[in-house]
């Protein structure tokens, strides 16, 4: 026991290069989730853990929930952790990218070393199934004739659905009244109860209700129709080249050894090919979209630049 303790201490004191050789032995890897236990990101994290432990020999993961302040607490924690591979976090884009523009945060985009993207949930514009508005064209036409008459729910200024909605409004040159609901459930009851006209939602959340026949998807901001609900037309099909949504992926604090990043990235890639995981993802309506470390970093960098430009020209706060 004493010997083991000594070894662990020694491993902790060694140079990063040497410590890396031992990684992930010795201590559990903290996986920081910036949202509450039981939420979408949390369930995804907890669903992934057994697979990651299977594909990285000797690794143990602990999910740490650090909810609050729109994700800022959790993002700050994973950005500022010691870059030794023992703390990584979920990053939810664009939320973690918009926060540093909106207020003085204790991290920036550069504080992170992206590992891999897991899920991309394209934004979708939805109305109640019995709405008079049957297509995107009708929606735009109505909004042009009656500026600000349509009430459209989103999930908070600076959130993914707000940015997607803004992109649509600019592209179609229309104005609507935006209603910033605190999360999906209240927006959902408000739409189903007829208190608002439409909602901007991730397709993953909209698909189950659309399959029920409770809501109608007017358009999805994806390049192609999405497998989990192929009935929904894309915006591009209807003449609007809009590709937007929310991404969930892993990131480590900047400075984490590249070898660890690559090991984690490879394990995530294998998880996303595991049939058992794929079945779980399908049941949870998760639109999977793997991006490896290099691709993910480039993607987030570009997204960050776009958000920066938008903030310059049209600050939403």
């Amino acid at each position, binding site marked *: 026991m004493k010997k083991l303790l000594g070894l662990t201490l020694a491993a902790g004191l060694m140079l990063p290069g040497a410590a890396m050789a031992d990684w992930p032995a010795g201590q559990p890897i903290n996986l920081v989730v910036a949202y509450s236990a039981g939420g979408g990101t949390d369930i995804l994290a907890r669903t992934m853990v057994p697979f990651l432990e299977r594909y990285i020999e000797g690794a143990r993961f602990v999910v740490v929930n*650090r909810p609050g*302040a729109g994700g800022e607490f959790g993002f700050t924690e994973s950005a500022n952790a010691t870059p030794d591979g023992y703390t990584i976090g979920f990053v939810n884009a664009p939320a973690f990218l918009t926060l540093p523009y909106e*207020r003085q945060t204790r991290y920036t985009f550069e504080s992170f070393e992206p590992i891999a993207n897991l899920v991309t949930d394209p934004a979708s514009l939805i109305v109640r199934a019995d709405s008079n508005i049957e297509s995107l064209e009708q929606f735009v036409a109505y909004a042009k004739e009656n500026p600000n008459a349509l009430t459209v729910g989103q999930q908070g200024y600076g959130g993914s659905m707000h940015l997607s909605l803004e992109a649509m409004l600019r592209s179609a040159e229309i104005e609507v009244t935006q209603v910033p609901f605190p999360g999906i459930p209240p927006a959902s009851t408000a739409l189903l109860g007829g208190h608002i006209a439409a909602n901007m939602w991730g397709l993953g959340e909209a698909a189950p209700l659309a399959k029920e026949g409770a809501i109608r998807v007017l358009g999805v901001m994806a390049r192609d129709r999405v497998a989990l609900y192929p009935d929904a037309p894309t915006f591009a099909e209807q003449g609007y080249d809009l590709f937007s949504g929310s991404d969930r992926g892993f990131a480590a604090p900047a400075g984490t050894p590249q070898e660890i990043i690559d090991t984690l990235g490879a394990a995530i890639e294998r998880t996303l090919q595991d049939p058992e995981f794929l079945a779980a993802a399908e049941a949870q309506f998760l639109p999977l979209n793997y991006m490896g470390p290099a691709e993910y970093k480039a993607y987030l960098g570009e997204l960050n630049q776009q958000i920066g430009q938008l903030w310059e020209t049209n600050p939403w*706060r």
Partner: protein
Amino acid sequence: MPMQDALLSALIEIFAWQNFLAMVVGVIGGIVVGALPGLTATMGIAILIPLTFTMEPLIALGMVAGIYNGGIYGGAIPAILLGIPGTSSSIPTTFDGVPLARRGDAENALRVSAYSSAIGGIASGVALLILAPPLATVTLLFGPAEYFWVAVFGMCSIAVLLGDDAFKGLISAAIGLLIGTIGIDSVSGHERFTFDIFYLTGGFDFIVLLAGLYGIPPAITLAQTAASSAIASSGLSVTRAKTRFRDWKSLVPTWIRSSTIGIVVGVLPGVGGTMAAFLSYNEARRADPDPSSFGKGSYKGLAASECGNNADNASSLIPTLTLGVPGNAVAAVIMGAFLVQGLQPGPAMFRSEPVLVYAFILQMIMTAGMLFFLGGMIALRVFAPVLRLPPALIAPVVICLSVIGVYTIQNSIFDIYALLGFGVLGYLLQATGFPLAPVVLGLILGPMAEQQLRLALIIARGDFVAISTSAVSLIIISLILVVLAIPLVRFVRGHIVRNRSRTR
């Protein structure tokens, strides 16, 4: 499959020994979690979910149902024994539970609360079973405008609850409202009262406030007694009751009334068990021929609070199961438990997995029923002996548990400092005669009222009239007027009677 067949198959399924055992384990675990200050049923289920990943669906859901029902009841145990509500929905349980325990009737109080919880839980489960579709449509009638009025109604019921010193009660409620404004405003995204302190941007979780206000001051008081009496028994021991409470019949009207209130409040997303408990306590007091007995150890008050908060349980799952829209934190976590099993809650689930859905509903009823046997037993055998410990031991244990419980909410050290700060605040408030309940209700209802009002005004484009004209709004507004008028009428009538007697 017709509903009766699905029900029958479900009934057979849940009596399989593994499933039955899962429910028993869930109920016991839930009671323990609920009884520890700072730990909630929501947290218990959230922690359980990853473990259920590999379980059979009915085992997992049975445990979830057990934790839920057990957890909400569990809050009553410390509420009665120590005056520390384990969950915010057991705050009204302390009003009569504490006086009962002080006069040596803790055993009876624990039994009444267990039975009342069981009855509320069963009634709620039955409502979920037979009334889910019509009640789900009620959920949809409530938009932001209607929720705003519900929150106002809740706050007016605080005003009624203020008790003897209305002025002090209002100040307490204002403190709660003020605390509720701290953090990022969810509508505009601006920071309020954060003073550039990073940790304040998230605002305060009401569990931190609850554990601080209610958990720390009794511990301080206990420590004071310990200091003055050295190591001795706390004198709070649960002796065998001199007279066993047998007058169950007198509680029947309270149970019916509180179950109804709990079920209706449960259907409204976001309102929650706390308001159910407060409202049913209020109603029980108002309907009683002797309202002055409330707060002095009335079994009816105790039964109303516990029956009301458990009657919220199953019915708060109605929007989740029938619409796929979770109404509150617990329901969201339970929806997570379904999702992990590959089940998407919503009307389709009733068609695709009828046996499983009905089995879960039956598990909600069964686990509520288990409180009859397990509830009182665990309270008396496991928790009551705690009171025989000297206060010098109880005080640090209570503080430790509160600290651990609060830390688990968001793994934040700052929350522990906040807990201690609220503890000092609670101690000062209590010492100066300010009631604590309005502070907690203010923090729960204030942000709800503000947020919903602003959403409603955005939707109505700033039209204050438009947010009050729906049928539901009008009904709630008239209820508000009634609630506000009653004390006024009573005051005026009292004045007239007094004047008359003076002139005679």
